[in-house]
């Protein structure tokens, strides 16, 4: 065994984040450690590198060969040489002022590696010419490859990859994972993306609230998983095929000081019985796998309903929109003649990778950006030529759900006044505000209790925040809702819940919804029509079902393949 963890426990000031984990990683094996945010997987990875804050205490043992990593204080000759990390977010992990070659040389000198910088680059599939590049000259995927090369410099026995694909496009994500899996190094990949990792890992360890729920060879996981949480994670990942249902796990992961007795997943589990609440299940052998569950049935989770596409009156009509961004040195064509129609009661997905112009288009329809040319009509009224008060009056009929639930809510306002904000700015009479605010809150699937309405955003979970955002967008009774990557920063288990809410709103209120996303799977599952955008041009559009089964553009086919794991 290269790495063997025995009863590894990590706690922060008495609150246990990782609870007695035992796990082995064999020589050359790639193990994926999977779970939602707050489940303890990052704490575990950091403990193995000695990167925990001073407030954390580690007990139990974590042996890497002969070296004990748990509770170690002297990390010289261990970090970098025996165990190395591929950090999350390669955008900031590289020095912006040194050439790639110099950074590799530094790593080699520090950790006594014997390779040449060019060899390292070759191992990660980059040409030696890149030694002379600076970090900003590389794409996100190339930077992540350089980060991997840096981790390899000290010839470590164990590589720990912490969310190595965050912020990368779907196609690049697969390339980076394939590269990592092909290195032949013993590896622990920490990620929230179970479905994405399955084809590349040898074994998967699913973690929930500080404990292991299931450990199973990756090859048999899709067919034979036995823990309800694993089933939940799998169904919560949208597959670009309308026949595979997309479900959500109700609720959210428990906070460290509110861990339930017994099985920690029980409050969210469809199979939970009174036994689950009383007795915590042990991790027991289950064929080739280990599972911690009292049950052996397959759970059923709530599924996102698919619309049957009722065509209402057109609400949005975008015709021939061009947009150019000008800076001093160059001009960027963000949109090159885009047409788009959205009808009442339908959800249209705008799919594209970063830089495809999808956010620019959303901002033009919102009236935040004036296009270089082209027309945007909202309910028959021209938007692009309006200014001042006339523009604002039209904007008040559009709801906007921002991408970042942590930044989109004023941190000093309570839920009630956040949701009532559009009512104040549209000048709704004071006596109607409270009723309409409560109406919007319940339509967004939130509790309408006084206690909840008095909370600050800091007291809400990510999913709740995004629902408050939706409630705020609904309050002024819009005819169009624009959701800009509304689910991208949420945990995978809550995404389907948000999509279900949007569907209910479209059906019940006849709301037109523009769902901007980079995830084609999500679009296929939850939207009626899909528009695929690439470098400012619509490359394909059509009904979700048709597009998923028979893509006509090679780029769409490529995206579909990336979303069909």
């Amino acid at each position, binding site marked *: 065994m290269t790495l063997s963890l025995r009863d590894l426990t990590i706690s922060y000031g008495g609150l246990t984040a990782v609870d007695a984990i035992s796990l082995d990683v064999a020589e050359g094996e790639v193990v994926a450690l999977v779970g939602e945010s707050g489940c303890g997987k990052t704490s575990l990875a950091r403990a193995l590198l000695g990167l925990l804050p001073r407030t954390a205490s580690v007990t139990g043992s974590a042996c890497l060969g002969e070296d004990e990593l748990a509770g170690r204080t002297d990390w010289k000759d261990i970090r970098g040489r025996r165990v190395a990390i591929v950090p999350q977010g390669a955008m900031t992990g590289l020095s912006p002022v040194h050439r790639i070659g110099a950074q590799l040389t530094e790593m080699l000198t520090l950790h006594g590696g014997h390779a040449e910088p060019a060899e390292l680059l070759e191992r990660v599939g980059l040409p030696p010419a890149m030694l002379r590049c600076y970090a900003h000259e590389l794409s996100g995927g190339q930077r992540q490859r350089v980060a991997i090369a840096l981790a390899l410099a000290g010839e470590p026995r164990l590589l720990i990859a912490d969310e190595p694909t965050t912020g990368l496009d779907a196609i690049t994500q697969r390339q980076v994972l394939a590269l990592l899996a092909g290195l032949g190094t013993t590896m622990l990949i920490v990620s929230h993306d179970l479905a994405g990792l399955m084809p590349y890992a040898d074994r998967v360890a699913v973690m929930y609230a500080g404990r292991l729920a299931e450990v199973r060879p990756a090859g048999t996981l899709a067919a034979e998983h036995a823990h309800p949480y694993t089933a939940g994670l799998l169904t919560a990942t949208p597959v670009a095929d309308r026949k595979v249902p997309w479900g959500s796990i109700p609720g959210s992961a428990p*906070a460290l000081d509110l861990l339930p007795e017994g099985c920690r997943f029980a409050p969210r589990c469809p199979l939970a019985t009174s036994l689950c609440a009383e007795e915590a299940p042990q991790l027991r052998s289950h064929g080739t796998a280990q599972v911690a569950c009292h049950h052996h049935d397959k759970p059923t989770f709530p599924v996102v309903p698919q619309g049957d596409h009722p065509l209402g009156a057109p609400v949005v009509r975008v015709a021939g929109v061009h947009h150019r961004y000008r800076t001093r040195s160059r001009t960027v064509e963000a949109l090159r003649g885009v047409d788009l129609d959205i009808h009442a009661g339908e959800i249209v997905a705008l799919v594209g990778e970063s830089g495809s112009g999808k956010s620019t288009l959303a901002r033009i329809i919102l009236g935040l950006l004036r296009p270089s040319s082209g027309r945007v009509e909202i309910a028959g009224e021209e938007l692009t030529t309006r200014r001042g008060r006339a523009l604002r009056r039209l904007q008040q009929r559009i709801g906007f759900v921002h991408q970042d639930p942590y930044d*989109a809510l004023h941190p000093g306002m309570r839920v009630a006044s956040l949701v009532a904000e559009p009512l104040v700015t549209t000048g709704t009479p004071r006596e109607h505000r409270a009723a309409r605010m409560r109406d919007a809150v319940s339509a967004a699937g939130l509790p309408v209790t006084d206690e909840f309405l008095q909370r600050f955003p800091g007291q809400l979970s990510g999913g709740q925040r995004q629902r408050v955002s939706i409630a705020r967008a609904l309050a002024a009774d819009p005819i169009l809702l624009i959701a800009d990557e509304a689910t991208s920063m949420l945990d995978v288990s809550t995404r389907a819940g948000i999509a279900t809410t949007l569907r209910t709103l479209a059906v019940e209120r006849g709301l037109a919804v523009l769902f901007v996303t980079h995830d084609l799977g999500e679009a296929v599952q939850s939207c009626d029509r899909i528009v695929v955008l690439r470098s400012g041009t619509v490359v394909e559009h059509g009904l979700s079902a048709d597009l998923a089964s028979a893509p006509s553009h090679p780029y769409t086919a490529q995206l579909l393949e990336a979303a069909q794991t």
Partner: protein
Amino acid sequence: MMFLRAPRRNLLGTQGLIGAGILAAIVGVALYGTLLPDDAGRARVAQPYAPPGAGLPLGADDLGRNLLDQLIVGAGASLSLAFIVAAATTVLAALVGGAAGIGPRWLSATLMRGTDVMLVLPELILYILAAAFLGQSFGTRVTILALILWPVPARVLRAAVLTAWSRGHLEVARAMGAPRWWLLLRHGSYLIGPLLIPVFVRTAMRAVIYDATLSFLGLGDPTAPSWGTTLFWVQTNGVFLSEAWLWWALPPGAAITLTVLALALIGTAVEERLNPALREATR
């Protein structure tokens, strides 16, 4: 986990509390000074060069004036000037920085180039020259100091406004058709308002130093008691050659140092808690 607690701000911390304590004591002394008779520190009450004794805890200067009274009255002069200058500068900087941040591009460019020109000028020399030619009345000194000190905070506040304007909740508010005044009052003030506190404190600190410098150079009003003026007479009389420096030169020097120290302690403590970049670095 974090999201269970309501947001609460502990603005000062131990370091800031010490600063606030010192400042409160000095403000108390200054307030006591307003109760003294009008001629306190100016009237001749003892023999010239009288050493400390009964009724004269700090002795008298070369004209027989009470040095303790000068110190107490000087506290009021220094602090009132510092706070008025700080308030004026903060308002000026907020206006210029805010206009440069959200105004049209030509306005922003004009204001920022003007700020750059002001930053290049050697401010102390400018201040001394202006004081020498325009006079030393209280109002003139306040105006000159405010006009000299605004550029740095204006730049800081412009950057803050630009950051604030790109925040998610401001963008959402703009997208839902909220008018500009609403954006500024409901959203902008929450993000920018806290930054005004360190600007205010730091400006007050610099105003105390600059004003004392001016008086020390003899460009202040030589008859109005202030810490800088006392030090000016110390210098002219060659007090450092005798043992009188202990009660004549040391108290006003220490008073200036303490005031600046108190303001600096408050300033850094508040800034560390409010400036996101510093908050990240000290974690």
